[in-house]
């Protein structure tokens, strides 16, 4: 018995899995105070709400793992959403989706060239893109909102509003994407190269990895997942404002950090991102069900993000304070 307790080493467990333990406690507290919280309907609802941020976070995880940041995803979401919604009535849903995906790939490629090949600082480049894409979005729409005239008459609705086997289609896209990209990251040579570049770029180049191309590809992937998220968002709302994606870059980063992926690169998984994003979704949903105003979740997010990374850093360091 003593040996067992010693092996479990409670403080260590609290440090390593602290955020999950805190999350379980939170789930129990909310569930005791709300009948609807842990019903299948509500859980699916939460998953559907996080599917847009979650899908974006899948691509951004590749960027973060390669040791870079992408702050432009929020503006990119605005742009690709107004593109897909704006073109829907003009050229039909199929071509509109295709153009939106191409725009996402193109913007990702521009980021990738500037950061991967020209080797500029990713924070500043994507900050510049955040501003520039906001402008491009406004130029494209002329400052007006865009919308789809007849939401009930188009198969475009399936991406945001449809169900497959009683589960919302966005959730299938999010979790399906997570499965595919998770396998790519964990099981392929390409995935290992992403970790290698993020872990030690000089060493990875010395061992024959084309770091420039790897970074480039991570940004292209990020652009693609943002465009997919835009299709979900556009289909869900059937319209779009110019600033619809504002602040999404922060939510994406918050989820990735909360999951335990290191912002320095080289350490993290797709599963961690899915967990982090989902936890944020449940916190938001739970607080609303408990009757708090929506902005209370921001206060909780503040503590949760810093707390999660602190526990992570502390468990590696072996002490709580520096």
């Amino acid at each position, binding site marked *: 018995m003593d040996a067992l307790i010693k092996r479990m080493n409670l403080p260590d467990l609290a440090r390593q899995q602290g955020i999950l333990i805190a999350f379980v406690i939170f789930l129990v507290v909310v569930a005791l105070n709300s009948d609807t919280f842990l019903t299948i309907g509500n859980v699916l609802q939460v998953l559907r709400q996080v599917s847009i941020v979650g899908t974006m976070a899948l691509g951004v995880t590749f960027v973060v793992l390669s040791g870079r940041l992408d702050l432009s995803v929020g503006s990119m979401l605005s742009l690709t959403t107004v593109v897909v919604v704006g073109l829907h009535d003009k050229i039909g849903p199929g071509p509109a989706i295709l153009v939106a995906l191409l725009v996402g790939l193109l913007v990702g490629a521009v980021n990738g060239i500037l950061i991967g090949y020209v080797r500029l600082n990713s924070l*500043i480049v994507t900050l*510049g893109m955040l501003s520039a894409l906001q*402008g491009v979005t*406004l*130029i494209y729409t002329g400052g007006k909102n865009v919308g789809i005239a007849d939401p009930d008459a188009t198969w475009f609705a399936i991406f945001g509003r449809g169900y497959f086997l009683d589960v919302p289609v966005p959730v299938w896209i999010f979790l399906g994407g997570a499965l595919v990209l998770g396998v790519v990251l964990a099981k392929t040579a390409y995935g290992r190269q992403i970790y290698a570049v993020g872990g030690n770029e000089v060493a990875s180049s010395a061992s024959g990895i084309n770091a420039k191309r790897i970074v480039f590809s991570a940004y292209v992937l990020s652009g693609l997942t943002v465009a997919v998220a835009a299709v979900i968002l556009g289909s869900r709302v059937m319209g779009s404002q110019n600033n619809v994606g504002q602040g999404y870059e*922060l939510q994406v980063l918050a989820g990735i950090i909360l999951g335990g992926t290191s912002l320095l690169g080289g350490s993290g998984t797709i599963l961690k991102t899915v967990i982090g994003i989902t936890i944020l979704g449940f916190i938001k949903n739970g607080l609303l069900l408990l009757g708090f105003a929506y902005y209370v979740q921001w206060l909780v*997010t*503040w503590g949760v993000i810093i707390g999660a*990374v602190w526990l992570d*850093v502390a468990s590696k360091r072996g002490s709580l304070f520096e």
Partner: protein
Amino acid sequence: MKSVNSIDKSMAQDAPTRKSVVCTQHERFLGGSLLHWVGRNSIWVILIVCLIGFSFGSPYFFTVFNLSNILVQSAFIGFLSIGMTLIMINGGIDLTVGSTLALCACLAIGLQQYGLVVAITGALGAGLLLGFLNGIIVVKTGVHSFIVTLGGLIGIRGLVFVYTGENSLSATNMSFMNFGMISIGPVSLIAILFLVFIAFAQWALSRTRHGREAYAIGGNRQAAENAGVKVSRHIVINFMVSGLMAAVAGITMSTQMGAATPNLGTNYELWTIIAVVLGGTKLQGGAGALWGTLGGVLTLGVLRNGMNLMHVQPFYVLVLLGVVLILALIVDKQFNNE
């Protein structure tokens, strides 16, 4: 003791040699220190080019009224960029400035029922306290300032909404609103305040021990610590300066508008970073100056104002700013990073 000596020696040897290499290269190519100066102060060259260009573009641009207007418009981002420059020289970043600005602006208006002194001190105190909180979390937990202040950006905005309950607040005290209108000659008091603060900060950075050690921390934190620099104290102080400056920006902004909204200052952290980076301060730390930051702040202000006067739609200004930022980065790489 031995390690301290060797680090000192290596630092002392390293700095002058690197500088002299750069000088000789430029001298070899163009035989002048002019190019060197331009390379280091490119933002002022860009600013002068913009000033000349817009003067030809619009008859209303180069007037005393408009120029003093630009100064006031730039002052708010300017206050924020003072703290941001200091923190970036330390090798950190502060994403909370926009949210802190909003909280302090709302406090400066909301606390006026208890008197003007309480309102102003309350707002300044809140800024200092939040800066202290950011700084102490950064140095005590060892979590990177980007993450700490990303959390703060979201959380402090939550505090603003909790305090205001989503409502806009408007000022009741007339003398408070008059403060924003005071000007000495053609120059507004808010702009003078900004220029005085940034001059003082530049003096502190180049003439005091705190300033010198700020560069040392950003250049090589471990080496600075080994050399006996009180790293934690310096970092906390700079975060407090940043919080205080955000409070000043929030208070002056609310005096000018006579009101405060909970969404005030959204995205200001991004504009501030753009201004500071345009001014030549490095995100990696260890290099930068408020002289350059002033150039960056003014360039942003001139670009927005000038494009506006030339009837360019504000949408294009956003694109231009993004492009300018990335171009500045490429130019900087060409000059300083062979």
